[in-house]
């Protein structure tokens, strides 16, 4: 079922219409939140909040936008807010440096997707949030500069520079060490 049909069903009050949205997008939204927040529980909370906000706002959704960029925008903003709240509430905040693995896994091990995912997610905690959001949307979600600009509500020039700076930082952390 395509997104236009799902939204039409939702606006006509079909009880299950939102289920279709959750089932269709849960993996992508959860994955995005996981790469943004690193922690599985935080990612679940943020992804759940994202869908609740989306359900509240969907009646006002305009069909000129695409549903997935709209959902991604809610998810990115939820993650940005989530981190802000979490940082405020964590009085015992230990430095991010302590969270880095003390040694990088061996190259053979590294080339297992789960290991790589963890190493990448950990390294990304060093990036400012807006850079992190841009690089996740580009490299993990595979979106174009235009789509990322729409999601983050910035120009494509800003997207280019955020992605470039993210790569520069991550290259120093992840590639130079190998």
């Amino acid at each position, binding site marked *: 079922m395509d997104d236009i049909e799902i939204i039409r069903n939702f606006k006509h009050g079909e009880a299950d219409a939102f289920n279709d949205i959750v089932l269709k997008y849960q993996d992508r939204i959860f994955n995005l939140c996981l790469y943004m927040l690193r922690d599985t529980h935080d990612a679940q909370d943020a992804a*759940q909040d994202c869908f609740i906000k989306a359900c509240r706002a969907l009646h006002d959704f305009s069909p000129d936008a695409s549903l997935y960029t709209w959902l991604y925008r809610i998810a990115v903003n939820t993650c940005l807010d989530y981190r802000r709240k979490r940082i405020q*509430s964590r009085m015992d905040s230990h430095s991010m440096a302590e969270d880095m693995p003390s040694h990088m896994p061996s190259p053979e091990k590294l080339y297992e997707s789960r290991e790589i995912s963890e190493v990448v997610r950990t390294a990304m905690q060093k990036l400012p949030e807006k850079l992190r959001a841009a690089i996740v949307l580009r490299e993990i979600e595979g979106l174009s500069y235009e789509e990322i600009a729409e999601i983050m509500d910035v120009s494509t020039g800003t997207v280019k520079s955020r992605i470039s700076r993210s*790569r520069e930082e991550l290259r120093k952390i992840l590639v130079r060490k190998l």
Partner: protein
Amino acid sequence: MRCRHARKLISQYIDKELSSGETKLFSAHIEACAACRLELEETKELSRMFAAAERVSAPYGFATRVLAGIEADKRPQNRLSHIFRPVLVRAAEVAFACVIVVIGFFSGRMLITDSPAPLSAAEMRSTFHLDVFESAPPDSIAGAYIGMTGVQNEK
């Protein structure tokens, strides 16, 4: 093209976002300059890591929890429409409401007491996390509940 300029274009080159003119100039510089070539190779290596990194699916039971959360979010506005809902779903809602009341009780206590909060917010969240459903095997009561509500985690 100077190194400074070439390095700024590496990221866009990888994303194929350079114009054909820029691509020619950039490629010519890369041919000639070993330092920029190394930086390009390292940046490509980073992209290969991203490509190889795991795409993680939402955990088991996630959609069920989301839909329960949405129901709880709607409840105050249209309470009447919920009277004839199945008993188990009602029971789950009551359990969820109890959790909210308990969280409210503890957070209220933290507001009125001078002594340090007994639990950090992170500890509290893990204590009340709805993940109790997560590892439920399909033949357990929780599994039956998930089955009855008709929500599948898989597409």
